[in-house]
């Protein structure tokens, strides 16, 4: 059964200076699935993303992606395998234009010499046009990304993620600081993306999670507290205690 899973984290633990950020965490994702991860601050959501993308190495446990062991690989190698990550704070290359940002993200050449000699092909132009359309950034395509609004930067970063053509997208708090309308538009966009790719979304905003309409994993103190539909999870007394109690 293991081979059917896209992402398979088993018994993963990581300790920072004696603090157990992740404690025997196991998480499995089927191909094509979208999963929302919720949990209070310090529950280990971002650390979990760091482990999957190679930024942090787990002390124990295994992380497999399409059957391959990720714990031996570094960030670029994992990115090239097909895992894309969107950070909580939008990180776009501010001095570059929107188009240049997208061009750098496109799946393809990565070796320095190849990048030096690369010329923009017709295929790449077409892919960029499609991404500009998807992210509604056509009008500002040649403007520096640094001049964009917060929402536009979020969308540009999502466009860059799409450009990487990853099998799995990790999205960290995509609607933080967005208006309600932008939040719902983002939920639509993620559902659209999920038609072709697997997605893991970390988010605090419950309205947004409800709009996604997917299974939810609740993290607490570095472990999985509950897993299931949003309604089932919300009714779980342990979840209620973590969120409301004490």
């Amino acid at each position: 059964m293991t081979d059917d899973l896209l992402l398979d984290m088993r018994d993963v633990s990581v300790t920072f200076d004696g603090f157990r950020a992740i404690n025997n965490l196991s998480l499995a994702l089927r191909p094509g699935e979208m999963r929302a991860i919720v949990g209070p601050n310090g529950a280990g959501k971002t650390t979990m993303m760091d482990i999957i993308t190679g930024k942090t190495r787990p002390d124990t446990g295994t992380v497999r992606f399409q059957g391959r062991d990720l714990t031996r690989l570094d960030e670029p190698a994992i990115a090239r395998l097909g895992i894309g990550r969107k950070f909580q704070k939008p990180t776009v290359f501010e001095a570059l234009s929107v188009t240049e940002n997208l061009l750098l993200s496109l799946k393809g050449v990565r070796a320095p010499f190849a990048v030096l000699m690369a010329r923009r092909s017709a295929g790449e132009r077409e892919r960029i046009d499609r991404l500009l359309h998807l992210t509604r950034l056509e009008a500002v395509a040649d403007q520096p990304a640094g001049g964009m609004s917060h929402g536009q930067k979020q969308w540009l970063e999502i466009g860059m993620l799409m450009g990487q053509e990853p099998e799995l997208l990790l999205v960290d708090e995509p609607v933080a600081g967005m208006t309600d309308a932008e939040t719902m538009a983002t939920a639509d966009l993620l559902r659209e993306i999920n038609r072709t790719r697997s997605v893991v979304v970390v988010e605090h905003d419950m309205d947004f999670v409800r709009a996604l309409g997917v299974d939810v994993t609740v993290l607490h103190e570095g472990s999985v507290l509950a897993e299931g539909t949003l309604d089932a999870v919300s009714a779980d007394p342990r979840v209620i205690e973590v969120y409301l109690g004490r």
Partner: protein
Amino acid sequence: MNPFSTRAPRSLRGVIWMAAAVVAAAGGLAAASLLPEGNPLHASVFVVSLAGKYLSYAMLALAVDLVWGFAGILTLGHAAFFALGGYAMGMYLMREIGARGVYGNASLPDFMIFLSWKSLPWYWWGSEHFAWAAVLVVAVPGLLASVFGWLAFRSRVSGVYLSIITQALTYALMLAFFQNGLGFGGNNGLTDFKDILGADLHAPLTRAVLLVATGVLLATSLLAARFVVGSRFGSLLVAVRDAESRTRFLGYRPEQAKLLVWVFSAMIAGLGGALYVTQVGIINPGEFAPANSIESVIWVAVGGRGTLCGAVLGAILVNLGKTLFTAWLPEFWLYGLGLLFICTTLFLPNGLMGLWRHVRKPPPEEVTPEVADTQGDEA
């Protein structure tokens, strides 16, 4: 216009203009130096060698701008690559002296005889060939930069820590080259050159040709640097400069990108050093002095970091200023240089090129959108 815009500094037209201006100026001055002495347009040998020196320094500045302006690596040791290129050329020029040295030995330079050496050390082999020297001029700085860069970037050393180790690198090389036993003439360095490729180094024609060659090689380096920063690799460098860890999650290895531009930059610096030695006539360990590297950073800051043309302009103008200033008030030059750097940082963060863009392009509220757009395309 936009504070984040980088289009104008990487302008191809600007670089072509600058390259053409450099070649024209070098050619014009070289031609003027060949006029008879009574001619009012005659340029003296002193002026020609001074111009050659400035253009060689401009290559060092260009090299610094490539790594500092575009990849964010604040190097405080680039003069080491410049000096190594200079020594590689100096070795050839020493061998060209042949039996005309004080001791009259056809194969050993004077300083080796003075040290009672019986034969050339292995690293001097082949140095009598100009072609081999031309290879070493770029290969030695390139090799040192590869090793240094590979170690530093792989360990993710960056920022001020990297600046400090580049400074340590050039200082260590300076101490090493002061040693007589190293085989590069110790304190005195390499000097008393006579010929290059059989041509008398002191003849006006040779000097004119060297100046033109320097101008052409500077222009070529400028265009090559523009090719690098104008390519997709150039975008990657800027991405690495501004958000290095983000590039990793896109599947790039920033340490490789930095290594590539670092080595390329060291080679340009080496070439500059080689041209410098042919025209200045001496290379000694003083060229490795940390202050030289810091000065080259100031040239770039004054001209405008991350603009390529600014580096060339800054190197020429600051050195021209230095020549004039040290003639009038030699003891105050360093204060002047320091003041210049402080003023640039405070009032001209984008250097002379930033000032130039500001003059050419008034603030946005004064122009209509269409006009702004056309200008944006041109600049």
